[in-house]
């Protein structure tokens, strides 16, 4: 076994273990922390694949953004320090079934199609990613980029409208 | 105008912060300004400020005379009963009876050095001394008698 595959299996085990712990722990804050480790592991996987840009974005968006927001909402929730009640057995059964079918579907897809290995050079140069993102020709992604920007802008305006205090009407 | 006020705010903020930084920068580069006394090393050359409050003492002149009339104004002014004045009744040569000081008891261990007794004294008989090395091995040594033995009141002080 080469060093690369050792690192891959290590990362994969880390991600899976953290993910399982994240759904089985009964303390909600620990659950968020395990989710964080799982996401960091995925970022590590991206680094392993040498797509540094995606890895860094994964850390910025998921770890630095989403998990911090989750932790903040946990902080602001009442009684979040207490242990959650035990899950009922019917729920465990149902989730086990869901996991089983999901796994079966994935396995079936992989078994039937297999992984195609292409020795194509994978271009992850940050400059070209940037140019592609804002190019207006056929290969560019300027339109989706702008659409996403407008969506985020709408979300931001919505946040401000919700958070804004309406001034009391003066008589 | 909004923009003008905004820029003005930034200008004044930066200006006032720079004034503060200039002051600390001045102190950082001018080590002569340092006021720290390296106490046990400079015991000989140590000079304390005039108004430093170390302990209460009674002023005696060269004739072993003080100015305390035993009026107990300081005892009344003291917030935590540091001073206890024991008086006696003297008989003057004319045969008049007069209250005079017998013993001025001063509990250094109770004193907070608030200076109220000195302010209260009508005859300026007591003052704050500069001494500060008060540590002793026995608490009873902190109870002091301020008037020196055989001292008497200066003539002419009522």
């Amino acid at each position, binding site marked *: 076994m080469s060093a690369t595959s050792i690192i891959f299996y290590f990362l994969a085990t880390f991600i899976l273990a953290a993910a399982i712990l994240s759904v089985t722990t009964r303390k909600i*804050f620990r659950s968020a*922390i395990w989710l964080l480790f799982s996401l960091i592991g995925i970022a590590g996987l991206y680094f392993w694949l040498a797509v*540094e*840009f995606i890895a*860094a974005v994964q850390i910025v968006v998921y770890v630095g953004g989403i998990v911090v927001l989750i*932790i903040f909402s946990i902080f602001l929730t009442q009684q979040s320090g207490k242990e959650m009640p035990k899950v009922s057995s019917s729920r465990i059964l149902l989730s086990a079934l869901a996991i089983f079918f999901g796994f079966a579907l994935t396995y079936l897809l992989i078994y039937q199609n297999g992984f195609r290995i292409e020795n194509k050079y994978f271009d992850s140069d940050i*400059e070209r990613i940037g140019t592609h993102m804002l190019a207006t020709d056929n290969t560019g992604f300027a339109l989706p980029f702008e659409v996403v920007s407008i969506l985020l802008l709408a979300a931001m305006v919505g946040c401000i409208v919700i958070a804004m205090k309406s001034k009391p009407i003066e008589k | 105008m909004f923009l003008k006020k905004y820029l003005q705010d930034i200008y004044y903020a930066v200006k006032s912060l720079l004034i503060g930084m200039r002051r600390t920068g001045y102190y950082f580069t001018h080590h002569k*300004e*340092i006021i720290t006394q390296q106490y046990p090393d400079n015991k000989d050359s140590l000079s304390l400020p005039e108004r430093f409050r170390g302990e209460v003492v009674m002023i005696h002149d060269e004739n072993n005379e003080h100015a305390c009339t035993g009026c107990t104004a300081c005892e009344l002014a003291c917030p935590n009963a540091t001073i206890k004045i024991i008086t006696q009744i003297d008989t003057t040569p004319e045969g008049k009876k007069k209250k005079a000081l017998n013993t001025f008891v001063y509990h250094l261990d109770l004193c907070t050095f608030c200076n109220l007794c000195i302010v209260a004294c009508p005859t300026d008989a007591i003052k704050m001394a500069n001494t500060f090395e008060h540590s002793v091995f026995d608490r009873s040594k902190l109870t002091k008698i301020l008037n020196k033995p055989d001292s008497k009141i200066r003539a002419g002080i009522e």
Partner: protein
Amino acid sequence: MPSLENIADIIHTWLNITFNSTTALLIELVIVAVSAIGLFSMLGLILIMMERKVSAYMQVRLGPNRVGPKGMFQTVADTLKLMVKEGMTPNGADKFLFNLAPFIVMIVAMVILAPLAFAKNFQLWDLNIGILFVASVSSVSVIGILMAGWASNNKYSLLGAMRSGAQIVSYELSAGLSIITIVILTGSLKISTIIQSQSDGWWIFKGHIPALIAFVIFIIAVTAETNRAPFDLAEAESELTAGFHTEYSGMKFALFFLAEYVNIFIVCVLGATLFLGGWMPLHFGTDTRFNELMDYIPSSLWLFGKTFFLIFIIMWFRWTFPRLRIDQLLNLEWKYLLPISMFNLLLTTLMAIMGWHF
């Protein structure tokens, strides 16, 4: 003349001759880890000493002056004290997370060290997205603080962690925008390219006013991000005893304390790299005699000199300005720094397109 580059080369060739390449790589990894830890502990000792002396002189005091010559070994004594102290874990704490948090903060600081260039050709990992990597990984350290605050099961810790989180998340924006200003001028995220682009003058000189504004905003934002006064609400002594590390003692507290100083060092290296040319000596245009003279000073000295200059400025801030209130803190970020840095970004873009910089 021995430089860091030569020493690294000598070790590398010797290891590759003596062992096979895999073993040599592993040994090199160990050497890197050990020297990173060594650098951190040295930084801790030096920076804490420096802080205490700077603060003393700014407050017209003498500072530590008993242990060793001029008190130079005071921090060594303090470290020894912290090492032999008991690291207690409170009863009500979430013990696992409580013990994990200081290590998270420390590991994050170590990971950020990877893409930084300390001297000419002396860099652990010159990756494509160097600056983005630093910016992204540094956002993880807030998790360690939040974790410590929560796991302590203490109201002061929780409040401190909340404040710290709000502060770091908001000031990351203006720090990022001021970093982007330089990235626009350079056209690259790679740290070696950024430094190379300053061979004929540092960006703070070449970039005129926009670079200067970006520099000031960067310094303010990183002071806030490292939770230092005047932005130290997260550990405001008078209100929250010590904020998120109230319950920590012994070596675990020392790790938090060390992480604060290491983070200052890292952001100052970053500031020196972006605005003051990293290890690049001071060069002016085509004046070759002056440039050659400057080249005689080793590149590592240049970097550490610039870094310590920035650290001194940050310390100067700390011992001059009073602490901000939480609403003032957020006002400063959202009403002043962010609009200014966005406007500055536009100005820089215009300047880069028109080629107005040198």
